[in-house]
């Protein structure tokens, strides 16, 4: 005998209906009941789904193609492979640094100037007897010190340049002069001196005096510092202006860290500035 379920009285253990819970759809109370995965809520192996505000808390989980966001700790950090399949953090560099490669991995480094001349500092000379300017020429092959448009408050003052506040007899210079209202002068020079000095008693009424010095290898601590200079001055004992140029050696293996420009006798400067350039 076959018993019709439609007319039967439910007994204990019968299913009277299926309700689709969260993540399912379908269900019913009679006939063939179908339950389907609600792909709007449940990720399957075939559907595409965006997970929002979900956290995978265990850092030991291995998820191919996924990088732990805690690898980057600072704004500007970058991720690179320190080895095959090994993400690593590259912390943000400093301003002006560029990305380079060292020992096979990326790193930040100070940009090479790539040749040319770079202004490092400008110092107003002011109404003082001497001016000392610190120099950081790291990364440069030479330094140019341009003392420009200076004038003095009174005439009759030779000028000097010293490096690293060194007033010992560590300087040699040779020079030639022309102009100054007289015939060109023969090359001159002298023994060791305590400065690179002008041979001229400079007038105070000239506001476009210039003294330029170039120094090679300012950071090389194995060699003496060699340079050359050119100046345009007006000498007090002559009727005109003129030019001095020549070379000098600073007998020190110390890096050049400062330059002092000053007046040997009384008086002060009344105008001018000092520009320091790095050259590669």
């Amino acid at each position, binding site marked *: 005998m076959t018993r019709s379920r439609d007319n039967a009285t439910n007994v204990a253990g019968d299913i009277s209906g299926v309700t689709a819970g969260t993540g399912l759809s379908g269900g019913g109370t009679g006939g063939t009941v179908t339950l389907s995965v609600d792909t709007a809520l449940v990720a399957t192996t075939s559907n595409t789904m965006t997970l929002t505000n979900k956290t995978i808390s265990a850092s030991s989980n291995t998820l191919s193609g996924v990088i732990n966001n805690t690898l980057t700790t600072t704004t500007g950090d970058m991720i690179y492979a320190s080895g095959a399949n090994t993400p690593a953090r590259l912390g943000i560099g400093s301003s002006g640094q560029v990305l380079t490669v060292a020992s096979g991995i990326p790193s930040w480094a100070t940009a090479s100037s790539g040749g040319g001349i770079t202004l490092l500092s400008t110092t107003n000379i002011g109404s003082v007897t001497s001016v000392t300017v610190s120099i950081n020429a790291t990364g440069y092959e030479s330094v140019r010190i341009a003392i420009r448009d200076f004038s003095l408050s009174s005439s009759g003052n030779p000028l000097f340049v010293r490096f690293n506040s060194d007033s010992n007899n560590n300087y040699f210079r040779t020079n030639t002069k022309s102009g100054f209202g007289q015939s060109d002068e023969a090359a001159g020079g002298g023994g060791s001196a305590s400065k690179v000095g002008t041979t001229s008693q400079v007038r105070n009424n000239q506001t476009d005096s210039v003294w330029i010095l170039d120094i090679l290898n300012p950071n090389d601590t194995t060699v003496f510092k060699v340079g050359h200079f050119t100046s345009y001055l007006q000498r007090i004992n002559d009727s005109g202006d003129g030019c001095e140029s020549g070379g000098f050696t600073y007998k020190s293996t110390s890096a050049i860290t400062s330059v002092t420009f000053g007046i*040997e006798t009384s008086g002060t400067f009344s105008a001018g500035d000092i520009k320091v350039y790095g050259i590669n």
Partner: protein
Amino acid sequence: MNRPIVRMHNTETGEIVDREMNDAEFAQWQIDKAQAEAQAQAEIQKATAKLNAEAKLQALGITADDLKALGL
């Protein structure tokens, strides 16, 4: 007596300080000054000697060009 003023410019920090020379700077400045004054005096003596020599030549009827012609 106030000492001369020096300017120190730290280009790393941008700090500029004007101050009187310290003892070492002042001592060096006095050395430089003495040397410069001696050099200036030497230049004056050299110029004076030249003028005196030219005056003597002129008294003898000799010019500087005459000396150059002799290779002197």
